[in-house]
């Protein structure tokens, strides 16, 4: 059937009449040329200099050019529209530029010390001035993985149950709990570290350990996971809950067999966002894990290191080699966090379908 239709209409060519022709683009092209030309002239003949002067002048002249081109081609409304579009593009550019700059700097400085070797050795037999191929960050990497993993184990059940209280039980204290969770997400990370330092290390006379770090991190992770999980659970239609209850299920069976499976990919996203949130936290780690130059696998005894701690310590040593190690640490940390964010995006896209 479809092949017949194709043959019958084979002489009709697909067109895109909404595409802009070069002729229509000509005024815009002239506008761009004029704006760039005016900017260069301004920089030559006035005291405005440098990159900032160039960007400022270009922005100013582009605004005039785009407004007048649109005013000539159409009307005053189109001119206003073009000016607001320009502002939006510039605002987006302002957001993207620092991020791009940070990523570029980290990669260009961190690559010097980057290599497989850093994942094989720790700083136990190295001093800050050791060459880059001696002394890696294995101890810090293991510390980060263990503390973050254990913080996740502590945090996720509490956070998901909190979200379930808010969306399923909808109890009398929902408003209060939601408010406190939101307030918690505004707590500065060093407060979380000081809290564990005061409660666990001083009151219980415990020693520095990875476990203390995990406790501090879980406090920071909790509001992120709980809030995202709440949003995800809210998206599950009430129809499904009613269907479960109408089949003679208790509320807990309905939640555990229907609501949570339906929200699974979203809940995984919530957890990964929480992990990405805490992987780079420095202040609570500095106050709780104590730091170590050797690999320590045991989360519950002896001091531990972690990537943020390693970066901070190497930077404090100063000197070209130690600073270079700090940049490499930042690069590794960035790769880890980016990995988690990418994973989140992939999962949420899957869930969207």
């Amino acid at each position, binding site marked *: 059937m479809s092949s017949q239709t194709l043959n019958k209409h084979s002489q009709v060519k697909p067109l895109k009449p909404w595409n802009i022709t070069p002729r229509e683009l000509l005024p815009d092209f002239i506008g761009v040329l004029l704006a760039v030309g005016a900017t260069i002239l301004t920089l030559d003949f006035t005291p405005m200099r440098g990159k900032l002067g160039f960007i400022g002048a270009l922005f100013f002249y582009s605004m005039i050019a785009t407004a007048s081109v649109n005013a000539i081609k159409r009307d005053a409304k189109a001119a206003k529209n073009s000016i607001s579009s320009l502002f939006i593009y510039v605002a987006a550019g302002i957001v993207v530029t620092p991020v791009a700059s940070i990523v570029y700097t980290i990669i260009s400085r961190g690559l010097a010390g980057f290599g497989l070797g850093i994942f094989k050795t720790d700083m136990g037999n190295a001093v800050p001035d050791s060459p880059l191929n001696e002394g890696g960050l294995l101890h810090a990497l293991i510390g980060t993985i263990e503390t973050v993993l254990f913080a996740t184990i502590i945090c996720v059940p509490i956070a998901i149950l909190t979200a379930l209280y808010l969306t399923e039980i909808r109890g009398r204290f929902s408003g209060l709990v939601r408010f406190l969770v939101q307030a918690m997400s505004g707590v500065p990370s060093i407060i979380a570290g000081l809290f564990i330092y005061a409660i666990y290390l001083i009151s219980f006379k415990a020693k520095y350990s990875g476990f203390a770090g995990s406790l501090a991190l879980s406090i920071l992770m909790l509001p992120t996971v709980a809030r995202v999980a709440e949003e995800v659970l809210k998206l599950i*239609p009430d129809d499904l809950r009613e*269907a479960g*209850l*109408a*089949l*003679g299920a208790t509320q807990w069976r309905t939640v555990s067999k229907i609501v949570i*499976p*339906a929200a699974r990919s979203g809940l995984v996203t919530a957890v990964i966002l929480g992990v990405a949130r805490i992987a780079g936290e420095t202040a609570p780690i500095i106050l709780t894990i104590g730091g170590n130059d050797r690999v320590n696998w045991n989360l519950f005894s002896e001091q531990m290191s972690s990537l943020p701690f390693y970066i901070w310590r190497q930077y404090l040593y100063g000197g070209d080699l130690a600073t270079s190690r700090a940049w490499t640490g930042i690069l590794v940390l960035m790769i880890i966090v980016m990995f988690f964010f990418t994973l989140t995006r992939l999962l949420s896209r899957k869930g969207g379908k």
Partner: protein
Amino acid sequence: MSTNESDLSAKINQKGDSAKNATDQSKSLSSVSSARKVVDRTGSKFVGTGLTTKNVHAWFGKKHALADVSMDFASGTVTALIGPSGCGKSTFLRTLNRMHEFIPGAAMAGSVVLDGKDIYEAGTDVTKIRLRIGMVFQKPNPFPSMSIEENVLSGLKLAQIKIQNREQILQESLERAGLWKEVKDRLGEFGGSLSGGQQQRLCIARALAVNPEVLLMDEPCSALDPGSTLKIEETISELAKTITVVIVTHNMQQAARVSDYTGFFLSDNGPGELIEVAPTSQIFSNPKDPKTEAYVTGRFG
């Protein structure tokens, strides 16, 4: 299939004509409903149970939504609840299996008696009541994380009922819902992959798998196309041989086609009330109350 389609178009035509001529409509409708065969139910292993309500009232917060409804749903009959939007018929349906109480601020009075026992009696296990009184909702709502097979058997899993004859219950429920032939080769696919009408029949199969004695249907066809509607109506007619069905519908032709009894609800700026309940043919041909007559002949609502 072709006979179904011509049947359907006839019914659609009938609907169009009926709007113009009220008398004709009631005649043709009564003929449709009286055409429903009386079936011998002896020997069937699915046995319906009658349901009786006495002076049921319902509130949402301070709003009195439903007043003083007393109805009898005899075993093995189909009862349609009709009436304009907001007349309390869905609220009434939800009081019948205690789904009403999930709405915040909900309250009720009166009694709903199943098999000689008030389901609102203190100490009643609500989950057991809902196993005996199943429900199908307006929008098809198969569980998205489960396959077709898992959806059908989900009621058993949710209520933690141990079963030996899994395959048998699966096939039987799907057959009773009129879906077995269409899905028997794709039981492992997700419920969401079915069409809207098939999804709704899957929901019916899911409700049937726990072997309820009463099935409540809240506008089960309002989100479906005419073809699927017809299939579901056939399903309802089949089900009525074995269990008690209560169906809320906005479609009077549907009420006439599938039900034995019809209850007309109306709210006159106050709580919804049951105006009249009678055999369906009587409601559509010779209603006692002038309000019922005005509604079924399409003069308002």
